[in-house]
């Protein structure tokens, strides 16, 4: 027998129907209210766009702005597993929570500074390989070539597989005895590696997986960028006798920049925030050896139940991410200007 029962199907449909029904009623009430208040009563100039946005605005306020504020409040509280309902809020709790981020190991072993350093290494190594690998493949695919569509499709597969499946499948393949990685190493005459039980190798393993996952995105984006560069530039450079490298440096790179910069910013943010790959493959272990900031945040909150601390920690991580992105933008823009000058 198939385990899914008729009762479960009905239960799902009823619950989904209830949500959508509530949503519809809510939207109608909201719009009527807005119509009479903003349009009829206050006669606002922007009442129409305001009404168009209002349902989404309320949703964003309830789902993002309020939780964000609530998170800040929790950062100044002593909420924990034992004080889930009756926690108290106060400045001293907040100071404690924020100091705890820096003065003690975030979980059990590893300190904040080390996690930060590891996150920076993780992000930098991944993004550099994503960009180099993606650029290399995009340049090859941008040449006149038979079977280009097939190559392109096959090369996008790591991006197309749901990340959870890819990560779990790779986890199996890093198994010491039965995974293909060690099986191949053995056939090539190397000693098998303790991929998941040695923290250093485990970190290498998750980086390998994430590089594999991330190259196709860069390839596709950069290929789009390359295709928008007119071939006439290259023809002209050819006539002037520019070498391949010179053409790459003074035509391809500058013209690719408008695509490259936003793509690397996205890449940095996504990699910095990547939870699935590390958590599903190593759970941050062994001995917290592969934890980065976001996985340790999740574990502090949902495995160690340190809610107040976690809220403070997440605020610190957000600030670091914003700084990180800002510095990254400064550097990439700065490099572009230096080249242009």
């Amino acid at each position, binding site marked *: 027998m198939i385990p899914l029962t008729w009762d479960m*199907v009905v239960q799902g449909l009823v619950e989904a129907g209830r949500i959508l029904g509530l949503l519809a009623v809510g939207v109608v009430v909201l719009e009527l209210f807005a119509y009479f208040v903003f349009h009829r009563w206050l006669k606002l100039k922007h009442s*129409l766009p305001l009404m168009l946005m209002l349902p989404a605005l309320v949703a964003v306020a309830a789902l993002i702005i309020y939780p964000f504020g609530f998170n800040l409040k929790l950062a100044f509280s002593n909420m924990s597993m034992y004080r889930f309902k009756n926690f108290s809020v106060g400045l001293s709790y907040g100071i404690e929570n924020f100091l705890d981020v820096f003065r003690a190991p975030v979980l059990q072993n590893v300190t904040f500074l080390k996690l930060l350093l590891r996150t920076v290494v993780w992000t930098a190594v991944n993004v550099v390989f994503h960009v180099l690998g993606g650029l290399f493949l995009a340049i090859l695919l941008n040449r006149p070539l038979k079977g280009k569509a097939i190559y392109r499709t096959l090369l996008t597969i790591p991006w197309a597989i749901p990340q959870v499946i890819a990560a779990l499948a790779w986890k199996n393949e890093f198994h010491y005895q039965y995974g293909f990685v060690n099986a191949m190493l053995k056939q090539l005459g190397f000693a098998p590696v303790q991929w998941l039980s040695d923290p250093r190798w485990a970190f290498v393993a998750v980086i390998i997986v994430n590089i594999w996952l991330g190259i196709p995105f860069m390839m596709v984006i950069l290929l789009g960028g390359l295709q928008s560069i007119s071939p006439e530039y290259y023809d002209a450079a050819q006539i002037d006798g520019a070498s391949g490298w010179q053409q790459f440096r003074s035509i391809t790179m500058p013209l690719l920049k408008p695509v490259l910069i936003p793509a690397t910013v996205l890449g940095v943010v996504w990699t910095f925030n990547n939870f699935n790959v590390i958590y599903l493959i190593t759970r941050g272990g062994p001995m917290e050896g592969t934890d980065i900031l976001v996985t340790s945040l999740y574990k502090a909150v949902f495995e160690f139940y340190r809610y107040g601390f976690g809220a403070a920690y997440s605020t610190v991580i957000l600030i670091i991410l914003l700084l990180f992105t800002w510095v990254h933008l400064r550097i990439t823009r700065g490099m572009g200007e230096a080249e242009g000058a």
Partner: protein
Amino acid sequence: MMKKLFGKKGREDSLAKRLLIHLVLIMACVIAVYPFLRVITISLRPGAQLLSTSLALIPANATLENYRTLIFDKDFTIWLWNSLVVSITTVIVAVLLSASAAYAFSRWTFPGKKQGLLFLLTTQMLPPGMLLLPIYVMVVRMQLFNTYTGMILAHSVGAVPFSIWLLKGYYDTIPKELEEAALVDGAGAIEAFLKVIIPLSTPALGVCGLFSFMSSWSEFMMARVMLQKSNLFTWPLGFQKLLDQFTSQWGVFSAASVLVAVPAMLLFMYSSKWLVSGLTLGGVKE
């Protein structure tokens, strides 16, 4: 060597160069595809050979046994149904809320518009887990823990801003003259939106729905926090549970992966060109 890699475009390369390029691309394709081929291989292994160090792509005595176990003896169908309920409802919520909001962002100028768009973009940067804690507390307090509703709320957090951003990009590409013509014909602004813009953007709405669907469909972290009852598990949770006993369930996990990944990959291949243009469209235009 450099010339080979970066040289002119639009002209034929020499035979040797073309061979080299094909060789490199074939190697890259093998690296890209091999792990998934292995998943298929392992899904076909009979129980007795599950733990083998063989690298053969088609296992000896290939069988569909693992697929049978998965469908009839595991909660696979329940997980799929749960994921389906959550992600389809999330999509409807997100598209309904964002279709009109994105239109306002695309067609009107009003104070705070630029900041609003920037804000929506920033929400996509928030570290995962940051809003999860407050939303978890809210969901528990509203007694929505272990319900589809709690999951759908959690998934809408990301889906609504993303959909607004994507749809605004699409609306921007629809010429204003079309609605102006309708307005001249005496239609109201709302009527013009419903009768001109919505029909024209059905493909865009579909694509936007598809992306919200795909991200909700494969979401792991929030599900892990919001759902503890195993008969409410979405498939990512179920898959992780399957792997808790690695040795006995590797084949079943692989069968499950094939059944979920193949449709997901086809859907992705079909829609990825829109995602790429959507991402760039939103960014280029203010």
